């Protein structure tokens, strides 16, 4: 096994197990810490792909974002009630099964759809020079502008949805 393959497998195992820990651990604190670990792992994988700019941005944006999450968890949650809410109840069980099914569908779909285009050799040469942040910026603001903006809107929706969910009935800090 050459060093690059070893590094890739090592980082993948760390990242995937940290990602699993986010989902499987019932304590929100450890889940948040594992999320941070996942982000660092993904950044390291970017480094092995010579995408240094993306790795740095990954660290800055997501490490900071997870930090906010962490503070939220510490300050706003009643931890004991939260652990129970995460690990008990019929509704959450159904939600879990549903999410797993959706994720499974996504993965299978991604594999089926990408096996033709990504794994085949009929792709145009998309590789720009190593860590070409300039090309990246130009591509984002010209060719992929729509996707970029749509992603922004999506994130906005997620933020609003998170607040709405947190304040609706049944949450640990619901409106009384």
């Amino acid at each position, binding site marked *: 096994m050459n060093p690059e393959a070893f590094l890739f497998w090592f980082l993948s195992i760390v990242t995937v197990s940290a990602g699993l820990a986010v989902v499987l651990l019932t304590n929100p604190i450890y889940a948040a810490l594992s999320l941070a670990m996942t982000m660092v792992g993904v950044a390291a994988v970017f480094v092995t792909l010579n995408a240094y700019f993306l790795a740095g941005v990954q*660290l800055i944006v997501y*490490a900071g974002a997870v930090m906010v999450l962490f503070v939220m968890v510490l300050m706003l949650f009643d931890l004991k009630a939260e652990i129970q809410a995460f690990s008990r109840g019929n509704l959450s069980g159904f939600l879990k099964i549903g999410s797993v099914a959706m994720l499974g569908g996504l993965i299978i779909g991604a594999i089926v759809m990408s096996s033709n285009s990504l794994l085949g050799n009929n792709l145009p040469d998309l590789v720009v020079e190593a860590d070409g*942040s300039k090309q990246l910026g130009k591509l984002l603001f010209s060719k992929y502008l729509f996707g970029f903006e749509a992603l922004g809107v999506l994130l906005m929706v997620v933020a609003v949805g998170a607040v709405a969910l947190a304040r609706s009935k049944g949450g640990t800090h619901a409106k009384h």
Partner: protein
Amino acid sequence: MGTDVFQIAVNCIKLVIVFLLMVQAVPLLVWLERRGSAFIQNRFGPNRVGPLGLLQLLADAVKFLFKEEFVPANAVKFLYYAAPVAALVPATLAFAAIPLSTPVSVDAFEMFGQTWGPYTFLWQGYEINVGIVYVLGVSSLAAYSILMAGWGSGNKFSLMGALRASSQIISYELALGLSIVGVIMMYGTFNLTEMIAQQQGTLSFQFLGHTITSSWLPNWGIFYQPLGALIFFAATFAESNRLPFDLAEGEAELVAGFHVEYGGFKMLLFFIGEYGHMLVASALMATFFFGGWGIPFVGVAEVQAWAATVVGAGTSASLLTGLVHFMVFTLKLAIFLWIFIHVRWTLPRFRYDQLMELGWKTMLPWALFNTVLTSIIFLIAHS
């Protein structure tokens, strides 16, 4: 890492040396801090162990090593032990990416009956093309060690300190990141080495088709980005949790904040992390705004010519040139570190609401203003 055994070996040794450089600077800085504070407060400070008290820190380190090893009853063991190590890592990783001097070119030479080709070694742990992004990204991980310590200690004071520290770091990271956007626009690169290269010589820039030059001012970033430099320096104080921003420790309210429950060498590791962040901040300050390893009024070529007359041309001249520039860089570092220490013993601590107000209502808008102003000026100047 390199193409052959020699290059790989040298690069690995270099990584170790850069790490030791940072760790070895800490006892000196602590000594400077204690003697400096004593000087400011009109007392003696540690002056018994060794000449000028210089060996005091060695004695302290030995004492720290022999302290009793304990874990608080309520502590989460894994986080409690992991936090001091996590405090050390980000500063080390960030410092290794900062160019400390001019590259050393080694001519081809014979060793073990083999010719080893010409090499070029950089005076830094590793070069990264997007240096700024990397350094900022890595050092933003430092907050996790504080949170881990605060949560893992199982102590309410620790947790309060950790919460304060994390919200402070989040707030000031925005101003920190925005304050150097102007710098990035000005140099047009993320690469720290290229930034330093652009700051050599005397002040000269293009404006509306005219070339404006100064006869004596060096071409340093501070003359283009004074506001950015000010905001950046203030934000680095908050990032490294130093006074006047050390609300996370606030002895009067929180005993010692996130490291209340730490003793012995674990506590010393937090110390090393804090001083490491000071070092990184000073190095970035020198790199962005004060010409990095550049000597004002003297070019690299002149130093090289002088070195060639002293030790003869070739490898040794290149090495001597690197050494001279490294000394200059160290001098610049020392000046900023002394400012860090001087501010700590001069200014009182902020109140918490004042801290947040300064971060969100003063520094963030001014950093945004600086960014917008820089881009407008660039648009005009290059039209």
